[in-house]
Every structure is written in C-alpha cells, then in structure tokens.
C-alpha cells in the first residue's frame, strides 16, 4: 500500500512540475469551455431580414415587421424590388426576405386567407427551420384570438431552451474525454519515451500496483479539473441548475473517468511516443463523442450506429449528468446509467489493463 501512495504522489508531483501542461489543461477546462459556451450559438439570433412592400405601406405589413425584433432578428431592411432582394439573399447579406403582395392587406381585410411570401436562405438548415417556425407563430398570433385551439407548450428542464446552458457542458465532456485518454496514456508513454520504462520494470513493486497507482493519479487530476470547471464555468458563469444530487454527479464523474482511463491504458500499450498518443486520442475521441448522443439523439441515428452507441461510455455519462443537473432525476432512478457505465468502464479497463500488463 505504501508503494501505491508513493507512486501516486510521485505522479502528482511530476504533473505539478510540468508548468506547460498545467497551464494547457487549465486553459482547456476553464477558458475553452467558456469560449465555446459563450460563442457557439445555433439558435436564430440577429437574423438579417429584408422586405419588399408592394402593398403600399399597409398597416398589416408594418405590424408583421414590427414583430421581427431583437434578439432573434435584425431591423428589417426595405428593398425596392423583388430582384434587389433576391440579389441580397444570393450575396448572403440577407437571410430572410419577405414580399408583401399588392393585395396582401385587401384580402386579409376581406376576411379571407392572404398570403405572405417568404424567401429563405436555407443553407443553415436548422436556423432556417427555426426562423420559419418563428414567422409562422407571428402570423398565427394575428388570427389567434379567433383560432379555437391554443397550444400550451411547456419546455421542461430548460424553460427558454437556452443553449448557453448546454454548450459549455457538452464542451467540458469532450475535453474530459480527450484529456482523459491523453493524460492517462502519457503517464506511461512518458516513461517509454524518456527511457525510464526499464527502471520502472526493475523496481520491486508489483506491476498491478504501478498501473493502478499511475492511472489513479491521473484520474484524480482530471476529477479535480472537472470539479473546478463545474464550479467556476458551469455553475458560476453559465448558471446551470443542479436539480439532483451532487454526490451522484461526483460519483458518476469518477466512474466515467476510470472508464476513459481504461481507453488510455490501451493507447499507452500501443504507442511509443507522446505524438502517437495524441493521434490515437483524437482518433478514438471522435467516435466516442459522436456516438454519445450529445449532438444527434441516439434514437435518431442509423440502427447500426444505435447498437455501436452502447459502447460509448460518454453516452451513459451525458444522459446521467443531464438527468442529475436538469431533469432532477431521483438517485434511485439513476442506477441504469451507473450500471451501464460500470460495465463498460470495467470492460474497457480490463482490456487496457491486460494490454499494458503484457509489457511488464
């Protein structure tokens, strides 16, 4: 047991001494999470609108235009003709173009259906879809006092579907995965690269203790960084809710980090230089992230990908964390995530352990 603590302490000290690495991980866990959370937005915001009003300044067209306001839309810009508006859309100066026909108002006043022509640059598919939806809601609002059905929509767990509460979390998880593999692999590969591997083999310490102590040291570092980022970025800056139990969150993080470290062990076994570790990590990280359901819901994926997704430890972690933070799922209902992650984690750790164990 003393050997375990000594190795653990040695690795922690080594980590603290490599100033560049400490700065780099702090940058990614704190600054990068902030940048991504703050800057990447997919919702329609500041969408540029142009319009041509052939209905000669009718009240209705003005009313519709007045509904297109910040933060979703920029102030609508008038155009002289349909052609001028089209050209602006083709030049990507305008995303949404509205054309009011000459009889736009007349037909509405007559109590019938009138038509609003919308030209939409749909290069950004999701934004155009959401913009179109927004427009539909606006015009529906005009007739709604007489429309007999009202939809009461409740978006649970994130009332305003604020992406600022999701992007930083998604980025943190990607960074945890990437650095989880890199750190836990390089703690072994460093020895190979610097030629101290043989010295390590000569020490009278059981190889199992060496492997476990080295891995645990990196898991602890990552755990500390994750908690730091959770505290400062997620809860501090982006004000994420915590509707479930924090202890469950911490425990889940720890289990997740061990399963990622298992992948790190595998990478450590097959790489000889840190450069190879970096390549392997990026190579493995992408499928883990894409099969996790963070970007595309798993139930929307191709059926084979859905089966593959069972193998991504991140899948269980992200659903679990979302449930704890947003959905406020009670602890007893989280067992599925814990079970999934423990099984996958134990499997990955065993594979990695056996692979690297052969080198001892």
């Amino acid at each position: 047991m003393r050997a375990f603590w000594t190795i653990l302490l040695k690795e922690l000290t080594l980590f603290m001494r490599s100033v560049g690495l400490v700065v780099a991980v702090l940058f990614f866990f704190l600054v990068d999470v902030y940048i991504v959370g703050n800057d990447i937005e997919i919702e329609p915001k500041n969408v540029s609108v142009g319009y041509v009003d052939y209905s000669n300044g009718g009240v209705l067209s003005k009313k519709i235009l007045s509904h297109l306001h910040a933060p979703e839309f920029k102030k609508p810009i008038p155009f002289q003709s349909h052609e001028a508006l089209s050209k602006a859309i083709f030049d990507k100066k305008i995303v949404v173009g509205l054309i009011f026909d000459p009889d736009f108002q007349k037909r509405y006043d007559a109590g019938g259906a009138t038509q609003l022509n919308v030209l939409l640059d749909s290069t950004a598919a999701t934004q155009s879809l959401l913009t179109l939806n927004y427009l539909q809601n606006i015009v529906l609002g005009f007739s709604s006092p007489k429309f007999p059905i009202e939809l009461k929509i409740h978006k649970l767990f994130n009332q305003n579907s604020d992406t600022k509460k999701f992007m930083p979390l998604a980025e943190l998880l990607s960074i945890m995965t990437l650095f989880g593999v890199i750190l836990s692999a390089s703690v072994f590969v460093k020895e190979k690269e610097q030629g101290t591997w043989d010295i390590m083999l000569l020490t009278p310490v059981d190889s199992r203790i060496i492997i476990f102590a080295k891995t645990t040291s990196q898991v602890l570092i990552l755990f500390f960084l994750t908690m730091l980022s959770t505290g400062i970025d997620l809860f501090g800056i982006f004000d994420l809710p915590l509707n479930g139990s924090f202890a469950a969150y911490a425990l889940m993080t720890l289990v997740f980090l061990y399963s990622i470290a298992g992948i790190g062990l595998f990478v450590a076994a097959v790489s000889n230089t840190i450069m190879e570790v970096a390549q392997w990590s990026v190579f493995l990280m992408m499928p883990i992230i894409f099969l996790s359901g963070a970007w595309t819901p798993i139930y929307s994926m191709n059926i084979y990908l859905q089966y593959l997704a069972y193998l991504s430890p991140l899948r269980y972690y992200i659903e679990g964390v979302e449930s704890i933070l947003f959905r406020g799922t009670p602890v007893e209902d989280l067992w599925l995530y814990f079970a999934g992650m423990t099984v996958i984690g134990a499997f990955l750790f065993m594979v990695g352990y056996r692979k690297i164990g052969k080198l001892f």
Partner: protein
Amino acid sequence: MRLGAIRAYMLKEFIDLKRSKMIYLVYLLPIMILILFGYGIRLEVTHARTIVIDQDNSKLSIDLAHAFMHSKYFDTKILPITPDEALASMKRAKTDIIIIIPPSFEKNLLKGLKSEIGVFIDASFPLRGRVMQGYVQGVLLNKASEYLPPQKIPLILINQRLLFNQAMRDENAIVPGLIALALLVAPAILAALLIVKEKEYGTIFNFYASPLSKAEFLIAKLTPPFVLHSVNIFIAFFIATYIFDVPFRGSFALFWVASELYVAVAVGIGLLVSIITRTQIAATVLAMLITIIPSFLYSGMLMPISAMEGGSYIEAHLFPVMYYSYILYDTFLIGQGLQSSTIILYLSILALYGTGLILIGSKLLKKELS
C-alpha cells in the same frame, strides 16, 4: 535556387512521411472529419419518443393523435396513463414529448369554444427541444385547422420558398463547412510538424549547417503538405457529392482554384506555428487550436456571418475560413460563380492571405542558432 538540392530534400521528406506512417494521417484525418462530423452533427430530430394522452377519446382527438403516427419525426404511443406517470417517464429520459388532449376537446372545438392542448417537451438538450417544439406545433395546427368550422377567419398563410437547400437537409448545410474545416486543420498540422520535428530531434542543425538557402528549405518543406493535401480536395469533393449527396451547382474549376489557394493558406499557418513552437505536441495543439475553433465559428456552418455583430463580425473577416466557405457554399449550393463580384474579391483575398503568410513565415524563419 538549385533545383537539384530542392528535389533531393523533397524526396527525403516524402520518404520520411512514408516511413513514419504519417502519410496515413494525411488522408485519414480529413476523411474522418468529413465522415464523422457529417454523420454526427444532425440537428434534425427523428423518432422523438412521444406519448399522447387522449382524455377526450373522440373522433377528432384520435385523428389528431394519429397525425403523429405516420411521421419519421415521431415514434408515438397513445397511452391511457396519467400526466404524472408520463412526466415521471420523461424524468427518466424515456420520453421526449408528451401531448395531452383535454376532455371534451371535440365538443368545444365544434362549438367554436377555445380549447387547450398541453404539450410538454424535454428541453434538457435545448436545441433538440426547440426543434421538437417546431414539429409539434406544425403537426397540431395543420391537423386542427382541417377541422375548423367553416366560418371565415382571416388567416395569413406563409408561402415559403427555400433557396439553395430546398429539402432543408442538414448534410447540405454542414458538409461544405466541414470541407473548410478539414482542408485547414490537416495541412496546417502537417506543415507545422514537418519543420518542428527537425527542431525537436535536433536535425534542424543539418539545415543550419548546410548550404541550403531559406527559400530552398521552405520550398522543399512546404511542397509535400501542399501537394499531398491537394489530393484531399478531390477526396472531399467526392465524399460530399457521393456519400452525402450534396448538390454541386457551381463551377468545379472555381472550387478547385479556391481550394488550392486555401490549402496554401493552411500551409502558411502551419509554417507560422512551426516558428513559435519547439515540440511536436505543442505544434499539434497550437495548430488545432487556431484552426478548429475559428472554422466552426466563422464558416457560416452554424451561424450566418450576416448574423454576427461587433467583435465577432470583425474576427470572422480576419480568419481565412470565412472567405473560402463563402466560395464553397456558392459552388455547392448557390452557383453564382465568377459573376458575383464578392467571389472575385474573396478569391483575391485568399491569394493575398496565402502569399502573405508564407512571406511572413520565411522572414521569421531563422537559419542560425538563436
């Protein structure tokens, strides 16, 4: 300029790339970026797990519930459970949408009274929540308006014309942006590594001591990444058009020229990275950092440039990504080509950008111990 020396050095680089297996990385990385992100980033939601609780059980309400059955967007179950049970299922992440049709819904509607339909959406993945909200609104309102009593209600109908991406396919929106990402990240990393590798191993002293001039050294070092990655332009084109079925409406020549210029810009970025870093790992991380995030932000893939304001609008114009992806989206989806003055302007900006970076890089490159 001695061509013989350059040729010999270049040959050494190619052999080196082959031996160190880095040559696989040259083609693997861009292909992986395109395929993984192309399949991975889907903002559209299909098969959302939906529960309809029909408390009315009338013809109309059943019809309404069935409207959700025949759609790829919803996997619908009509269940006789209480709203609380449904909510508990949502809390366990088993359900995404709950629709509650209240009792006497049909009766009220036929009388012209207002009735409410309750919709609950899991927004813990916020964007997904929004997209699902749009779908639900569309289906319910469309279906319900078929049943409106024949009285005159002034309605405004939207006659939409979707330009450039009529089917609203996520692939069309994202894949061209991914090409801009792949063709920037991969050449930049390779160019940086080829030079930094020598620094890290100390073999850069061979160059310091050799009679090779700086220009010759740079030509020999930067040509391999440029040539190897030029092949990726074609690979990317085939992946986009054959695997992802993205339409190509512009001129291939324009696409090709712009892409070559862009690869040159990427190589120039790699050169600058190699000057300020000393180890391969640092060079890789730095090259990725200054290429990946701007590519995502400023390619217009996730957010149109016209929607940016202030700082980010200016930043978008500082990075080469915006100019190239404008041309990319034009050649793939729009097809204005050289008739548009913006494209000619952006093409020349890319050319200037590339030469500028390489000139600055060669000025800063040292041929002695510092």
